[in-house]
C-alpha cells in the first residue's frame, strides 16, 4: 500500500515547470485582493456591514437577539443563530433565479457553524440572532467575504463575542498554492480551500475544499489561508475602530483596563468556565 501511495504523490508533484508563474490580476501568490469594510450601512438593522473584497460587493445585516419565529424552532436553554446567504439575481452572469438554491442553503449552514463558535448563545434562551447576507455582486470567494461582513455586523449589533471571525480562501492555480482566489481562478483553478479563523483563539471555524490536492498541499493551503485571515482581521478591526471612534491613544489607555469592543472581557469569561 505504501508503495502505491508514493507513486500517487509524484504524479501530482508541484512546481515542475520553469516558466515564471503570474496570476491573472498580477497579484503575488500570497497577496489578498483589496479589502474594504464599512459598518453601520443599514440604519434599520441592529448591526450591519458592507464589504468589498476584490469585485465582491456584499451587505450583511444582523437583527436580534429577538424572539424566534416560528416559535417551534426556538430552544428553551439557548439562542439560535440563523444565517441566510442570498445572491441577487444580477450578481452573476447569467442572471440567476432569486429563489434559494441548494448551494445557498449549504453556505448558510457552513456560515452558521463558522460564526457560532464566537458567540455566547447560551445567554439568549428562546431567542434568535438573524444574520442576513445579500450578495450584490459576486467575484469568487463570496462565502469568505460574507463571513467577514457578518462577523463585523455582529460586533456592530453590540453582541458580545469571544473573537472576531475572519475568512479567506487559498487554492491551487497552475500548480501553485495561492491566496484569495478571484472569480477566474476559482473556476479554472485546481482546488479551492475556503477557511474561516478566529485569530485570538487560533481555531478554524469554516473549512471546505474541493479540487485535487495532496495531503501536504492541503495543509499548506489551510496555513496560507490562515495568514490571509489574519490580514483580513486587521481590516475588520480598522473598520470597527473607525465607526466607534477609537484612536490609537484612546485605545492604548482603554486597553489597560479592558480591551476594546468588549472582546477581551468576553474571552476571559470563557476561560473562567
Amino acid at each position: 500500500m505504501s508503495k502505491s501511495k508514493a507513486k500517487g504523490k509524484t504524479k501530482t508533484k508541484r512546481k515542475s515547470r520553469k516558466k515564471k508563474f503570474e496570476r491573472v490580476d498580477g497579484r503575488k501568490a500570497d497577496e489578498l485582493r483589496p479589502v474594504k469594510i464599512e459598518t453601520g450601512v443599514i440604519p434599520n438593522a441592529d448591526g450591519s456591514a458592507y464589504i468589498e473584497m476584490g469585485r465582491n460587493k456584499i451587505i450583511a445585516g444582523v437583527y436580534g437577539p429577538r424572539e424566534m419565529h416560528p416559535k417551534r424552532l426556538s430552544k428553551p436553554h439557548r439562542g439560535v443563530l440563523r444565517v441566510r446567504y442570498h445572491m441577487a439575481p444580477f450578481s452573476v452572469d447569467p442572471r440567476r433565479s432569486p429563489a434559494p438554491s441548494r448551494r445557498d442553503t449549504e453556505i448558510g449552514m457552513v456560515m452558521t457553524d463558522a460564526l457560532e463558535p464566537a458567540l455566547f448563545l447560551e445567554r439568549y434562551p428562546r431567542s434568535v440572532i438573524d444574520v442576513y447576507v445579500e450578495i450584490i455582486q459576486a467575484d469568487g470567494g463570496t462565502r469568505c467575504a460574507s463571513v467577514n461582513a457578518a462577523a463585523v455586523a455582529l460586533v456592530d449589533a453590540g453582541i458580545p463575542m469571544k473573537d472576531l471571525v475572519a475568512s479567506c480562501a487559498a487554492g491551487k492555480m497552475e500548480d501553485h498554492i495561492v491566496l484569495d482566489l478571484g472569480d477566474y481562478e476559482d473556476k479554472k483553478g485546481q482546488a479551492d480551500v475556503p477557511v474561516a479563523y478566529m485569530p485570538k483563539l487560533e481555531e478554524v471555524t469554516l473549512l471546505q475544499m474541493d479540487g485535487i490536492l495532496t495531503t501536504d498541499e492541503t495543509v499548506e493551503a489551510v496555513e496560507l489561508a490562515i495568514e490571509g485571515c489574519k490580514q483580513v482581521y486587521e481590516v475588520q478591526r480598522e473598520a470597527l475602530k473607525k465607526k466607534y471612534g477609537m484612536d490609537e491613544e484612546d485605545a492604548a489607555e482603554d486597553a489597560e483596563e479592558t480591551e476594546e469592543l468588549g472582546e477581551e472581557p468576553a474571552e476571559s469569561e470563557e476561560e473562567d468556565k
Partner: protein
Amino acid sequence: MSNNIVSRLKRKKIEEVLEAGTRMDGRGLNDFREIEVRTNFLEKSEGSAEVRMGKTHVIVGVKAGLGTPFDDTPDEGVLMCNAEYTPVAHQTWEPGPPPHGAIELARVVDRGLRSAEILNMEDLGLVSGEKVYIVFVDLYVLNWDGNLIDACGLGALAALKGAEIPVFKVSKKNEVSETDKTQKLELRCEPIPITIYKIGKHFILDATADEEEVADGRLTVTLDENNNVTTLQKAGPVGFTVDEIKKCINIAEEKAAEIRSQSVASE
C-alpha cells in the same frame, strides 16, 4: 448538540467511555462498524448499491438519460447527486422538503465525486450545447444510525462502478437516437469520504446516531486512491486547530486506504 437532559446524560456517558479509550458499543475510537456493500441488485436502474454500516442502511441508485448541458460547459455531460431522507429512516424524520442535512449530504458526496473528476465529462457530451448524458446519483437513506456521508459516499462509488448506461447514437445531422446497447461508466479514480467526529477532545470515526447527536462537530475528508484530498467539509458549531486538522487528515488517509482495500476492491 441538543441540550435536553437526556442528551446531556448521553453526552456525559459517551465522553466517560471515550476517556477510557473505547466506545458505547465496544469499538475502538478509529474503528468502523462492519460494512456490507451489495451492488447491482436492482434491474431498472443503471447502477445500484446497498451499503450497511451497522444499523445505518442506505441505497444508492444511478440513472442515466439525455438532457441539455449547462451553458458554460456545452460539451460536457452532467453528474448530479441528490439525497432523500425517507421518513421510514428515523422517528424524527418527516415527509416534506429536504432538511438542511439532506442538502449538505448530497452536496458533500457530489463534490467528492465531481472534484475528483471521477467521470470524464467530455466523454458524456453528445451534441455540443444541445444533448449530453445526465447521470443522476440518488442517495436513499432507509435507516439512520449515523455517519451518512461515509455510507452514501461509499455507496455512490460502488453504484457508479457497476453502472451500465445506455448508448446513444449521434447521426451526421446531429440527431440523437437510442440503441439497444449499454456501456460501463469509466471511472478515473475512487474517492472515499471519511468523516471524523469531534466529541470534547476526542476524535472518533463512524459515529452512531447517539454519538452524532452529542458530537461538537465533524470534518469530512474525501481521498482518492492516490491519497489526494478531493473534498473537505467542516460542520458543527466548534473550531478546529491546525494541529487537529492535520490529525484528522492523517486519520482519514489511513482509514480510506483500509476501507478501499476491504470493500471496494473485493467486489
